[in-house]
């Protein structure tokens, strides 16, 4: 808790659940970044003599494997760390790409209006109407299942939210009197967008990003669980659950460990997102 108290000293009015969530999220992020160095074992190394060992403290536990091992004798601490790294990486990169594309399209639609706006919003509506899973299966069938294809597909899952958010913000901001005053001073569209509209967009976008990230994390996990995400032997949190579900009754820890990591991560990010939203706009 020393990190939490340090945080509280920096921002004394931080509510304790948020301080806790921020600390946890930071620790998880550090763990994901440092996974190759802090993982005690190679995550893909199978040890058939140490299969399905329970976590430390249970009968039959192996002292080297704190969280136990899976059906191939792979160390669950190492797999969870690497799985977190892969899942979080895909979710973060996918979200950033989706956010940039969506915001760009929303800005263009909101500022140019007219036919450009109509055309762009038709694409957004089409994306919303399209069954996402179908799109994913199609994408994977056509392009294969490399990590970058998964990232691209994950980014497709959220961009329309950013586009609609950005467009709505631009439409309301451009009618504000300070924009009219800026135009009267001689500002062009570039100045208005950069100086007046984009700075106001930052807060709602950050909120949308943090609120959207848990959904993207779960989505990546769902794809891996279904076996259509990043391919084996690479560890992702969803793949670990998918592989462990056959031993759920006899060796529940194989599923419980990655589930707890997903739960901790999404809970923290969601709590931070809710808090940011309340700070940015108490009416939402």
């Amino acid at each position, binding site marked *: 808790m020393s990190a939490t108290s340090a945080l509280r000293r920096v921002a004394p009015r931080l509510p304790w659940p948020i301080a806790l969530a921020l600390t946890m999220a930071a620790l998880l992020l550090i763990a994901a970044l440092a996974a190759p160095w802090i993982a005690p074992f190679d995550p893909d190394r199978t040890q058939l003599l140490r299969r399905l060992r329970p976590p430390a403290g249970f009968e039959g536990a192996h002292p080297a494997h704190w969280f136990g091992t899976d059906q191939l004798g792979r160390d669950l601490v190492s797999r969870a760390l690497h799985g977190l790294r892969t899942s979080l990486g895909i979710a973060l990169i996918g979200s950033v790409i989706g956010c940039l594309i969506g915001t760009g399209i929303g800005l263009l639609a909101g500022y140019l209006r007219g036919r450009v706006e109509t055309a762009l919003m038709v694409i957004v509506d089409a994306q919303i109407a399209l069954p996402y899973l179908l799109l994913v299966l199609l994408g994977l069938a056509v392009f294969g299942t490399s990590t970058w294809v998964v990232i691209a597909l994950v980014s497709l899952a959220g961009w329309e939210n950013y586009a609609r958010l950005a467009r709505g913000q631009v439409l309301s901001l451009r009618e*504000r*009197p*300070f924009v*009219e*005053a*800026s*135009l*009267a*001073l*001689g*500002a062009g569209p570039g*100045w208005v967008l950069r*100086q*007046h509209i984009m*700075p*106001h967009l930052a807060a709602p976008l950050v909120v949308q990003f943090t609120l959207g990230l848990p959904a993207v994390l779960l989505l990546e996990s769902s794809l891996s669980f279904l076996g259509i995400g990043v391919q084996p032997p690479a560890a992702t949190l969803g793949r670990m659950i998918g592989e462990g579900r056959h031993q759920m009754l006899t060796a529940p820890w194989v599923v419980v460990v990655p589930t707890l990591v997903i739960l901790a991560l999404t809970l923290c990010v969601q709590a931070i997102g809710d808090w940011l939203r309340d700070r940015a706009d108490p009416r939402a």
Partner: protein
Amino acid sequence: MTPLLQAVGLTRRFGAGLLARRGGVTAVADVNLTLMEGEAVGIVGESGSGKSTLGRLLLGLIPPSAGEVRYRGRPLGAALAADRRGVRRALQIVQQDPTAALDPRWDVARLVREGLDIHGLGTPSERAARVAGLLADVGLDAGFAARRAHELSGGQKQRVAIARALALAPEFLFADEPVSALDVSVRAQVLGLLNRLRAARGIGLLMVSHDIAAVAACCERILVMQRGRIVEDAPRATLLRTPLHPHTRALLAAVPPPPVALLATG
């Protein structure tokens, strides 16, 4: 004196689109008007009479549906196309609600400096000096430069908006209900300031208000608008003493009497 801005058959309709009620609303209907350099003109009328729309048309902030605006004898559209920056600098606006008119994320110095930044005028230190001078002109001391709009009172915000409009040394100022959003106690100060600054610099003024007293305090010529049309155009003294149009008489009759008069009649 030469004509600065002219309106010729100026018309603006709103909401004539596909989904709107047939015909829409005609906010400004066939207005002909000549504003001289350095002249202070007021427009009074009820809300919805098209006063603000007329001002925005004259500044080229919205396009007319018919007719045209001429800036120094040239069509405003052509003048903007030929020298957008020069014409934009010449025509400035002070809006009704000073809170909405100032970007809440910016500090006062940046707000006042915006025009200089847009046009790239002067070095950073020259701009800072100019901002300090403008703040002094509108009666704000240098300590305000680092404040945000929400830390200011309504009157102080409107002073910042006036400083911003004056930063580019304009030839013409459109003041759209400049004191309507302010406390009664500071209205006279802001009107006095506006009048003093524009007279000293020879800036033409078009002040729109529903309050005849506010307009009469600043403008030697007063126009009365009703449903998009100018129904009376007269020097201040003439209009106040011998109003001709029934709508002008109605507006004058609607001015509330000073509180002391209420005592006398009660």
